[in-house]
């Protein structure tokens, strides 16, 4: 049986957008391949009858993509090369057998997927069309412009093989079930899911890998796909842990008239060393209690952006010196903090206004009063002078704070500062 190919050309598709459309083409053929950044090629031998013939099949595909808002040109031919050429440069879009040559002949050399240099060289010889190119002896062509020119020509005319590389090579960590009957209830989904997880986790375990992100695809009877995914902060391959994380999300899946196929796939992998379990852990798996499991459960419930780590930043001003970053982000090393810039563990926010006495104006503090309580200062060190981050405040003038570390007569230590206007604030307690 003759091979037949559809080529779909998307002239205006944004980069990275094509991937989604490739997946969608699964329904036309099992052999779908992405071609560059703007085309999809499908081997449709023996598939077209399902749509009532090639013409209707092409129309079906084009109308769906058009509806999605994509400009698309499509063609069907005996070879990938010919379909490629027609979709981009052709005036007819379905050709077969003998006709192919006459349809391809008037097309420009660019229709043959040749490199720029070869095209330029051929142009200099006055060769502009496929017809003119075909008149040249192949041996002469190969000597002058390399074997690729001849191969492309032969591929277009079916005289040389061109394998199709399906986009979905058998996914190494993918497992699925085609169900005899559509299922609707969460329980039923859980049951299938558990099976699939067991299958996949066993493989991960064997290969010392763990999942960071796992996706569940439920294909609905009506052709839609219901999806959910779980993320973990560390690589995981514990079935129970993953089950728990998925459970939180299953209720949100809309089954419609039921799911007929269910797939899970691991989208993000990381190496995870095997753990030797001791007896106590066999009965009570440790991961349930570990901080990681807690983080994952909190993250699944609250959203991972809400679970944060503390990170020390390079910033002189205390209010900007500590940052909270979501646990899912890679751990950023904390800044190396100069030992002499001593900061309180917690800041009083906003700083508390206090009154302070000094021996002479602008000098070190000797006495301060906060919340009506007076304290005699027995030791003080400073000032540490910090200027404002003028670019944050969008001003061309600098303001300054003079920080002092002080100790009162009872041995309590405080961090206070004097602002530009001379007023004093308590900004924290020091250990």
């Amino acid at each position, binding site marked *: 049986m003759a091979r037949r190919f559809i080529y779909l050309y998307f002239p205006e598709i944004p980069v990275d957008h094509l991937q989604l459309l490739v997946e969608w083409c699964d329904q036309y053929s099992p052999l779908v391949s992405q071609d560059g950044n703007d085309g999809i090629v499908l081997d449709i031998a023996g598939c077209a009858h399902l749509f009532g013939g090639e013409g209707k099949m092409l129309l079906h595909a084009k109308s769906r993509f058009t509806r999605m808002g994509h400009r698309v040109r499509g063609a069907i031919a005996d070879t990938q090369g010919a379909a490629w050429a027609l979709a981009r440069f052709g005036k007819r879009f379905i050709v077969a057998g003998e006709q192919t040559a006459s349809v391809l002949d008037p*097309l*420009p*050399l*660019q229709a043959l997927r040749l490199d720029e240099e070869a*095209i*330029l*060289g051929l*142009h*200099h*010889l*006055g*060769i*502009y*069309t496929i017809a*003119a190119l075909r*008149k*040249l*002896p192949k*041996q*002469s062509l190969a*000597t*002058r*412009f390399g074997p690729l020119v001849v191969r492309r020509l032969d591929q277009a005319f079916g005289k040389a093989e061109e394998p199709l590389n399906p986009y979905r090579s058998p996914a190494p960590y993918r497992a699925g079930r085609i169900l005899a009957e559509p299922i609707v209830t969460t329980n039923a989904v859980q049951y299938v899911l558990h099976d699939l997880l067991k299958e996949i986790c066993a493989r991960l375990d064997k290969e010392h890998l763990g999942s960071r992100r796992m996706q569940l695809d439920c294909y609905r009877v009506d052709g839609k796909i219901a999806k959910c995914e779980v993320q973990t902060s560390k690589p995981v391959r514990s079935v129970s842990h993953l089950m728990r994380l998925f459970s939180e999300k299953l209720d949100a899946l809309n089954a419609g008239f039921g799911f007929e196929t269910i797939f899970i796939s691991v989208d993000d992998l990381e190496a995870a060393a095997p753990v030797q379990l001791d007896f106590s852990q066999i009965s009570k798996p440790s991961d349930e209690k570990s901080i990681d499991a807690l983080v994952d459960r909190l993250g699944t419930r609250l959203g991972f952006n809400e679970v944060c780590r503390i990170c020390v*930043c*390079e*910033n*002189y001003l205390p209010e900007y010196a500590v940052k909270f970053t979501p646990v899912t982000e890679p751990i950023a090393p904390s*800044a190396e903090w*100069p030992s*002499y*810039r*001593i900061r309180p563990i917690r800041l009083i926010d906003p700083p508390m206004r206090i009154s302070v006495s000094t021996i002479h104006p602008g000098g070190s503090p000797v006495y301060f009063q906060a919340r009506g309580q007076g304290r005699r200062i027995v030791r003080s*060190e*400073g*000032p*540490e*002078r*910090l*200027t404002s*981050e*003028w*670019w944050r405040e*969008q*001003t*061309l003038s*600098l303001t*300054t704070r003079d*920080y002092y*570390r002080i100790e009162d007569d009872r041995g309590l230590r405080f961090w206070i500062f004097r602002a530009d206007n001379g007023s004093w604030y308590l900004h924290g307690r020091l250990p």
Partner: protein
Amino acid sequence: MSGYAELQVSSNFSFLRGASDPRELVVTAREYGYPAIALTDRNTLSGIVLAHGQLKKDKSSTKFIVGCRLDISDGSSLLCYPTNRYAYSRLTKLLTLGRRRAEKGECILSLADVADHSDNQHFILPFPQVLNEAAIAHIKACTEMFRGRIHLALTHSYRGDDKSWVHTVAEFANSISLPLVATNDVLYHDKERKLLQDVVTCIREKCTLIEAGFRLEANAERHLKPPVEMTELFEAWPDALEATLEIAHCCRFSMDELRYEYPDEIATPGKSAFDDLEERVQRGAEVRYSDGIPPKFQEQIDHELKLVEQREYAPYFLTVHEIVKFAKDQGILYQGRGSAANSVICYCLEITQVDPVARKLLFERFISAARNEPPDIDVDFEHEKREEVIQHIYEKYGRDRAGLTATVVHYRRRRAMNEVRKVFGEPFSEEQKPLLLELTKQLIGFPRHLSQHVGGFVISRGPLDELVPIENARMKDRTVIQWEKNDLDQIGMMKVDVLGLGMLSAIRRAFELLQRHYQKEVNLSSLSSEREDPAVYEMLQKADSIGVFQVESRAQQSMLPRLKPKEFYDLVIEVAIVRPGPIQGNMVHPYLKRREKKEAISYPSKELENVLSKTLGVPLFQEQAMQIAVDGAGFTPDEADQLRRSLATFRHVGTIATFEHRFLQGMRKNGYSDSFAQNCFNQIKGFGTYGFPEAHAISFANLVYVSAWIKCYYPDVFCAALLNSQPMGFYAPAQLVRDAREHGVEIRPIDVNHSNWDATLEPIASSSRYAVRLGLRMVAGLSEKDGKALVAARNSGYSSPIEIANRAGCNRRALDHLANADAFGSIKLPRRKALWQTSALDGRMPPLFRESTGSLFNDPEMDLPSPKPSQEVNADYLATGLSLRDHPLSFLRPRLKIRRAITAAELRKLPNEKSVLVAGLVLFRQHPQTAKETIFLTIEDETGAANLIVWKNVHEKYRQAVYKGKLIACRGTIQREGQVLHVVARYVWDWSDQLKNLDDAPGAAILPARSRDFR
């Protein structure tokens, strides 16, 4: 002395670290009453002349201390202060050593290097922020090495624990008996500059302000503080305060001690430099005036020599004389430019070709008794031979004695804006805009890096690196000193400008061709002694000037028919008048009117009549403008010169306004009208950067005459010489060839059996004229090596491409390029057939196997489609940039005609104010600075060129077509002024699509429009 001296100061010459100009720093120090201030920039002495000069100018009692922060390659630093003249030279030598072995802008120094140059230097170790093992080791090592002349700095940086930290450091210093000195490690003269310092830090670190973190300073304390504040901060350390004064006192070196001396070995042995010069000048005068030196001339020689003797400039003239003598011996053409042409000495030494006595030029414009400033001689050499001259100078005097002057590259508006914007991070908010603008304003004018002056050489008697550090330039084999021109003037150093000029290369080639083919011996001096040939002027009056030096531009071409040059001095005016100076000063029209006798010649006053009588009462030359400032507005000559200088460097924007005010007031006081005064000032403004002094205009006019003479009498020679000197000038080879053909020159195509690398002259049967054979250099993509190999192995000729491959060793690519250029005409291989053969060759095949590949040529004689004429022309343009067949537009004419576009030839016959539609390939786009609102386009079709004027409102509307179009159409109105014709555009369309019709094959490449864009 009492109080405190600041010894650790970085200016903005520590690029992207300091945030103040050296002058701002020393002026602030003076205002605070500092007894002394040092400058310690990182591995550079670039800023010291500015700082020293400022304090000297202010007659300040604040002492300036030369210093330098030496950044050692192990990451440590050391401040170094030369205590006397010898130590200073050791420091400049040390920096030269570090700079010369590093990349441009870098410096590699080890502590051992410093030790080798440390005699009589004083050192300060910067205040340590931590005392880890490495820091302790470094301090101990330095202390051991420099005991008795090293201090450790104490700096109060308000980090919080200052008291205890300073104490810890001091304890440590005491433990190794290292004395202490207070510094403030200054980065800027005023607290407010902290903002700019943050910005430059981020530019240096390539980060935004938000990302910068600890790379910024925690506070704004690194400004120059009043001495009182410093004494309070270091109350507890009186010894450290006292030490600042002691060190300042022991640094006795002053920049005033620097004595620059010109090399002495150039004088003939046994004679003093002056005697030698006197003799050479006298001998030169006798050559110039073989039948007796006129008394006036002799008088002038004596006058100049007297001044030269007084000032001891003789060695300088001898040096320049030696350089031009070298050029002359090598057959390299040269000509002095600029104010040197005011000097009879330069004329006699054949540095310049202008007789200043005959031209009534004033020597005082060159060297003035009043201004104590060294002379400055600029010499143009052939642009292709300039490097030879430069390397000769390095070779003759050695790299330790000769160096190029630096130019400090400053932040300009656009660059500053971009950098500041990056530092703020995108997107910045509306509220940030004023900050951004203010900081950009502050950054403009900051030095960014040192670059090499175009050709300013400094040569000294002793090693130059004992005067100033020398570093590497970006270009290979170039070394640059750390000072720029103004710094040299300050120190009294003399420099020679070795410049390159393309026209000199072309003229030298033309002279060679004249000698070889016409047996005519001419040279620059022989032609310039009789430059009143009427035929040459007739040609120029018709604006027939394509290829002629200076007057070939469109603006000059439209001036020529109006000015109608009849004698040499008219060319001088022609050169000077089409310049931004006279144009901005609205001087052009009054001059032309007076010349055409449409306006009476009058002078604004009696005093100015002397100044302006040469140019019909209108100031056209730079010195006239300056003289007006003196005679009209009451400036002293020195002030007028300052004014010119301040205009040349845009940095001192503020000072221009004060000068303007003074100028206008002075003029009014002397009874001149406000509008005249304003015009004069505008002109002075234009002259600051773009004006020509008369002497310079004469030198240039000389080359105008010489090149016009060649064009007039030997258009074949002229064409070949210009083609072989490309790239240069205003026009592309296509226009030069076209112009030559219009002058009856036969042009022959590129051919593998006839062409040399350069264009050559070939005899024409039964004619005394020659034809120009185009050279292989015009073949796009062909390397000079391949081209020359082909010519060398040609012998009796080639009969096939493979022979070229075998004999000349050219690979397939080279042969493809030749085939594309249709260069196989003599072996009857048209382009495509040739290409079919060359493309079968594989360049990778070793020569031994090439013979066997001959079998490839037995492959079928291919029946390749034969090209259409328009395709041939298109292919010619693609491969060589021109076609000898037809003009591309001749093929499009029927289509253009349908659209009612007329040709350039038809255009010339139409009357003024007629509305027309013209179309053509864009040759030039000009956006002159003097007419910012207007774009001048020159378009070309098969009948000639047409000039379009596009006003702002039109080019804004048809932006795409005006800026990007290859083939454009324009509807507009004819504007005639005498012989000059323009079309003032009303509509402009991009018709580039029409060009596709030249080659209608699908996907064919279309000729590139080689428009040259000028500002």
